[in-house]
């Protein structure tokens, strides 16, 4: 059973006299990959460093597997960490980098050799064991950093934007590999990123953070489909943010099975509009004003007859809709999700 493996309770962090994080709480389940997602400057890395024991001024409780660890130093927490800059030791070979922690633990040479080689095999770098960090590509360096952290079998592995310095293709391939390692080795991972696509693709759970506060925690599906506030609706994915009054102007009377409230904001994802009618859907008349090709999808700007602009995304499987020609789109009111009062934006 997946229990709450890491519990952050009332966490406060002070840096240079400023309270960066106040009273933050969240949980991470055992053997899952949880992503810490938020815009730059939201405090993600600060929280990660506090969990690792690298911030000195921390209040509140950090419980790992039921034990309070907030007063332990970084070298006594049994937590692994992969830094954004890889932090490989340039004076050591790849083998020595991966073996570093095992040597600190004073393991025998036989054990070190066996475990390091097994880990290098997991990350497909056995042929690079004698190379030095300066000789590796960015992706290879990142795999070494992950191997170095995982070889110690830490209770928790923290990854601080590990893919941010890599190009798009390698990032996609490496994030899949990280997910594979996590599932194969059954490690609990907390992964920091500002890339929501990355978070959606690999996470069991996502904790979204902004301005030092947790905005929402849940599965990628819940985070996307049921944002709990205006920030969440705007931060995750493309969106149309409309008030109850505006939805009424479009012809809707309900949202998610409830009557519309005039002063409440509602989010409508662009891909939920359809050019084809369904029995439950409300018809919205208007015309497309612009069209952008996104590859697998086509993004349109739609101007309704009620003069409300809407973003619409349709799968790219047929002829694009014509610009400036009157047409009707259909929206199922059940897909419209309330996100909070209009003045909360």
């Amino acid at each position, binding site marked *: 059973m997946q229990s709450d493996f890491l519990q952050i309770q009332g966490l406060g962090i002070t840096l240079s006299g400023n309270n960066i994080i106040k009273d933050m709480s969240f949980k991470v389940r055992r053997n899952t990959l949880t992503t810490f997602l938020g815009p730059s400057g939201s405090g993600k890395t600060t929280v990660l460093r506090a969990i*690792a*024991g*690298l911030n000195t001024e921390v209040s509140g409780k950090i419980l790992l597997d039921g034990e309070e660890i907030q007063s332990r*130093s*970084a*070298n006594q*927490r049994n*937590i*692994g*960490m992969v*830094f*954004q*800059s*890889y*932090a*490989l*030791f*340039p*004076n*050591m*070979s790849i083998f020595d980098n991966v073996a*570093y*922690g095992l040597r*600190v*633990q004073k393991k025998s040479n036989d054990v070190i050799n066996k475990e390091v080689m097994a880990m290098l095999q997991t990350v497909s770098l056995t042929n690079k064991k*004698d*190379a*030095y960090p*300066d*000789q590796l590509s960015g992706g290879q360096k990142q795999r070494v950093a992950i191997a*170095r*952290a995982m070889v*110690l079998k830490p209770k928790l592995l923290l990854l601080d934007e590990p893919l941010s310095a890599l190009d798009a293709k390698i990032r996609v391939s490496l994030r899949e590999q990280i997910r594979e390692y996590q599932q194969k080795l059954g490690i609990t991972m907390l992964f920091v990123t500002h890339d929501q696509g990355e978070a959606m693709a690999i996470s069991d759970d996502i904790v979204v953070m902004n301005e030092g506060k947790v905005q929402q925690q849940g599965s990628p599906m819940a985070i996307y489909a049921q944002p709990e506030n205006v920030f969440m609706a705007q931060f995750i994915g493309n969106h149309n943010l409309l008030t109850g009054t505006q939805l009424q102007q479009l012809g809707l009377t309900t949202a998610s099975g409830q009557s519309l409230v005039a002063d409440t904001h509602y989010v409508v994802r662009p891909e939920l509009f359809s050019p084809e009618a369904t029995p439950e859907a409300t018809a919205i008349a208007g015309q497309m004003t612009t069209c952008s090709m996104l590859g697998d999808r086509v993004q349109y700007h739609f101007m309704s007859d009620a003069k409300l602009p809407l973003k619409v995304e349709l799968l790219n499987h047929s002829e694009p809709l014509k610009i400036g020609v009157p047409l009707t789109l259909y929206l199922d009111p059940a897909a419209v999700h309330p996100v909070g009062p209009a003045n909360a934006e």
Partner: protein
Amino acid sequence: MSPKASTRVARGIITFLFIYLATPIVVTMIYSFSTSWVKTILPNGLTLKWYSELVASPEFMAVLLRSFSLGLLTTLIAMACFLPVVFYANVYNPQVKSHLRFITVLPFTIPGIILVTGLIQLYAELPIPKIIILVLAISLLSLPLTYQALDNAFIGRDFRAMFEQALVLGDSPFKAFVKVIIPNIRAGVLVAMLLTFTSAFGEYVLTNLLLGGNFETLKIYMYRLMRSNGQASSVLTTIYFIFLAFISLILILIMQHYSAPHKSTKEGAKK
């Protein structure tokens, strides 16, 4: 002026400067090997007598040992005091570097006589041996060289992440510093040590003013010898010059060695 002509002029200036700077050294070297050289264009004869006499002199060995000890002690103190400070400033508190830069320039601006007077007035009442005051004062005087060489070593790598990574991997801060930081700044540390040692080894003003004849170092001995024995003095100057040239050569080799691409790789392959 055509490019060829300007090149010729530049070469001429460089050659003139080289001759101007090298002539006194060459003449001193020849003089150190001469039997006597008075009112003639060339020395009357060549001999190693002055060298053998100087090396055999217990006085010379004593001043050499004193200068060497002074250089070594100053280097150790400077490294022990300044390396952790430069590490802290670069890794944890870069804002403090502007203040450090200002402080490190101060020894250039304070004349030796003022520094000595100040030190004597400050410590005269305290039971601290003057030799300790001297070592600490020379360590401070070497600060501009030591600081700059150490500071340069921290450019280009994320030392904070490396240090913290070693901590997260279970190491203590001291061992992480020794195993991860020191090997990656060793070029800067070596350069700083050599520069500090050389400046302390050849220090004259502070030593002479603070301790005078009670603690005769190589430089003080050299000036004393100059007044009594020209040849012996030129022998000492030659030896001192060769020593400085040797240190400079080591510095150049260190810089070449560590600026070569994939240096760490080549080293590691030899392990």
